[in-house]
C-alpha cells in the first residue's frame, strides 16, 4: 500500500502490524468468555516517526501495545496476524524470535514507557540498580564508565544524578516518569513504545514530560508509538495517528489530516471534543457507551451509537480503505455514500 512519509526521510519501515487479532480467553468458575480486545488491526510505523494511537479507554489501545511488544501472558493470546520489526535492516517477526534474540533486542532496539509509572520501578531497588539491570549489558562498558554515562544522560534530561540513590517511593510521580523516560532512552533504542505516559500526571508536569519525550525522540532519532486518549497530545506530538474503536482501527492518517478533517463519525466526535480558539458551537456528547467486546454488535461496532447509521452498518463491518493519500477510514457512510441512498 502506498503511504506518504511524514518527513523527507526514505520510507524506512520499522514496524508493520498485519491483521492482528488478540483475544482474552478466560475460564473462571465455569463462566468462559472471549474478549476480542484487538480484532484485525493493521498498521505500520516508519523510522523517526511518532505514531499516535487514540480512542477512549478500553478500546484495545493498551492491548494492542502489549501484543506489539510481546508482553502478553494468558489469558491474552494472539489468534491471528503478525508483528514485524525491521531493525538495522533485519526483518523479524517478534513472535518468531527465541528468548535469547528477544532479550538481546529488548531495550537495545525496543524500549517502553508504561502506563501507571507509579510502580513500574522495583520498590525495593534503588534507581541506580534499575539502570544497571536494564541497560548495563547493552552498553557494554565497565561499571564506572557506565555509571558516568548514566549520569551524563540524566543530566541531559535535566535530572539530578542524586536520584540514582533514591528508592522509587521517594520520588514524585513526575520525577518517576522522567526517570522511566531516561531509563527507556538510555540505550538509544530504535523504537519506543509509550503507553499513556502522561495520564497520571497533572497538566504542567504533563506538558514538561511530553516535551522531554519529543526531545529524546529527536535526539536519538527513534520511532515511537504513543498511546493516549488525549487528542490534544496527539495534535501536539504525533506525526501520524490512528483512532481505535472497540478493538479496531477506524481511522488512520497524518495527524494534521485526521484532526483537520476527520471522516469517521467517531473520529469526528473525538476531534470535536478538542477546544479550538474562537469555536462557539455547542458540543453535544455521544450517547451510549463502547460495546462489550465479549459480545460485540454485528456489522460496524460503532453503529449503535452512530448518528448516520445505515442498514449495511448493522450487517457487515466496513473495511479500512483509503479516502485520501495515507488517510484510511473504516466507515460505510464515509466511504460509499451511495450505499445510504440504496437503503
Amino acid at each position, binding site marked *: 500500500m502506498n503511504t506518504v512519509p511524514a518527513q523527507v526521510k526514505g520510507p524506512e519501515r520499522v514496524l508493520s502490524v498485519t491483521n492482528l487479532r488478540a483475544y482474552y480467553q478466560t475460564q473462571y468458575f465455569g463462566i468462559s468468555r472471549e474478549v476480542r480486545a484487538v480484532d484485525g488491526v493493521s498498521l505500520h510505523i516508519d523510522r523517526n516517526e511518532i505514531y499516535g494511537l487514540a480512542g477512549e479507554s478500553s478500546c484495545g489501545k493498551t492491548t494492542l501495545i502489549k501484543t506489539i511488544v510481546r508482553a502478553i501472558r494468558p489469558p491474552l493470546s494472539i489468534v491471528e496476524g503478525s508483528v514485524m520489526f525491521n531493525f538495522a535492516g533485519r526483518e523479524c517477526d517478534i513472535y518468531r524470535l527465541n528468548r535469547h534474540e528477544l532479550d538481546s533486542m529488548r531495550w537495545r532496539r525496543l524500549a517502553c514507557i*508504561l502506563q501507571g509509572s507509579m510502580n513500574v520501578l*522495583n520498590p525495593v531497588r534503588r534507581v541506580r*540498580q534499575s539502570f544497571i539491570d536494564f541497560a548495563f549489558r547493552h552498553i557494554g562498558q565497565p561499571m564506572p564508565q557506565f555509571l558516568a554515562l548514566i549520569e551524563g544522560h540524566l543530566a541531559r534530561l535535566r535530572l539530578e544524578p542524586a536520584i540514582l540513590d533514591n528508592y522509587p517511593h521517594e520520588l514524585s510521580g513526575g520525577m518517576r516518569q522522567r526517570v522511566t523516560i531516561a531509563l527507556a532512552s538510555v540505550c538509544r533504542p530504535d523504537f519506543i513504545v509509550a503507553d499513556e505516559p502522561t495520564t497520571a500526571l497533572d497538566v504542567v508536569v504533563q506538558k514538561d514530560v511530553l516535551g522531554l519525550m519529543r526531545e529524546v525522540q529527536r535526539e536519538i532519532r527513534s520511532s515511537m508509538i504513543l498511546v493516549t486518549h488525549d487528542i490534544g497530545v496527539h495534535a501536539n506530538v504525533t506525526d501520524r495517528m490512528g483512532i481505535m474503536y472497540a478493538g479496531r482501527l477506524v481511522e488512520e492518517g497524518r495527524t494534521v489530516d485526521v484532526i483537520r478533517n476527520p471522516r469517521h463519525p467517531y473520529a469526528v466526535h473525538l476531534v470535536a471534543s478538542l477546544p479550538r480558539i474562537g469555536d462557539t458551537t455547542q458540543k453535544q456528547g455521544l450517547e451510549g457507551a463502547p460495546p462489550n467486546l465479549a459480545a460485540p454488535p454485528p456489522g460496524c461496532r460503532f453503529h449503535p451509537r452512530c448518528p448516520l447509521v445505515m442498514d449495511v452498518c448493522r450487517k457487515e463491518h466496513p473495511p479500512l480503505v483509503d479516502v485520501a493519500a495515507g488517510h484510511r477510514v473504516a466507515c460505510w457512510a464515509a466511504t460509499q455514500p451511495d450505499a445510504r441512498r440504496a437503503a
Partner: protein
Amino acid sequence: MNAYATYALKRLLQFALVVFIGINLAYLITHATPIDPVEQTVSAATAFGNTSPEAIAMMRKSLREIYGLEGNLWNQYAIFWQRVLVGDFGPSLSAFPTPVSTLIGRALPWTVGLLSVSTILAFALGNLLGGLAGYFADSRLLKIAGLAVMAVHPIPYYIVAFVVLIAFGYVWPVLPISGGYRINITWGWNADFILSVVSHAILPVTSLVLVGIGGWFMGMRSLVSNVVTEDYVTYAELAGVSRGKILGAYVMRNALVPQVTGLAMSLGSIFNGAIITEQVFGYPGIGTLLISAVHAGDYSLVVGIASVSIVAVSTAVLFIDLVYPLLDPRVKVS
C-alpha cells in the same frame, strides 16, 4: 525524631509488653499449681527408705525454710521480679540448690541449636521451593513437591515426629532415636563428637522441617504468583532483564517481605514444636527440662523456663522487626 526511631521504639514497647504479660502469666499459672515442691522432696526422700512419721514432720518444716517458701504470694511476687530483672530465678527446687539459671543455661544451647537450624532450613527451603513453584507454575516436579509438602503441613508436630521416629529408628534403624550424642563421647570440636551430634540431630530436625516447610512454601507460592503480575516485573521482562535476576531481585525479593513478618509471627508456635520434638526424641534441651520440671512440681524451674523461652522468642521477633526495614525500604515512610 526520625521515622525509623519511632518505628523501633514502637517495637521495643511491644516487646516489653509481651515479656511482661508472658512472664506474669507463667508466674500466676505456676503458682496456682497444686504441686507442693516440699511434698515432692519429702516423698522422694521417704519413698523407699524407712522413716518415722514425726521425723517427716520435722523434715517438712526445715525444707520450707530452706526453699524460702515462707511469706505470702505478694512478697514472693516482688522478690520474683527483683530476681527476674537480674536474670536469676533462684535455686531449682527439684535440683536444690543448683540455680535455675544453671540448669537452663545447660539446656538452652541444644534447643536454640535445634530450633535455629530447623527454622532456617524450613524457611529457606520452603521459600525457595515455593518461589520456584509460583514462578515456574507448570513444572510438574514442583507441582508434585508442592503436593508433598502440603500433605505434611497440616499434620501436628507430634504425629510427624512419631512417624519419622518409627520409620528411621525402628522399621529401618539407621539413625539414633534418643539423646543428643553417644554415650561416653568426649566433648569438643573433634570429628567424632560433631558427627555424633549431627547424626543425633537429623531426625528431630527432619521432623521439624517437614512440618515447617509447607507453610512457607504455600505462602511464597501465592505471593509470587501475585508479584509476577506487578508492573515492575512486566517492565523488567520488557527490558529483557535475565530470568534469574527477575526471579531473584524482583519477584522473590518482593515476595519475601511479607514472609519475614510471617516468620516473626510464627516463632512462638515453632517453639512449641521444638518442645514436643525434644520430648519424642529424648533430645536434651528446654522442652525435656520443662516437662520433667513440671512433673517434679519444681515451679521455680518452670517459671524460669517459661520466662526464658518467652523472652527468647520475643527477642527473636524484635530482632526480625528491627531488621525488617532493611528488607522493605517503604516501612520508613509508612
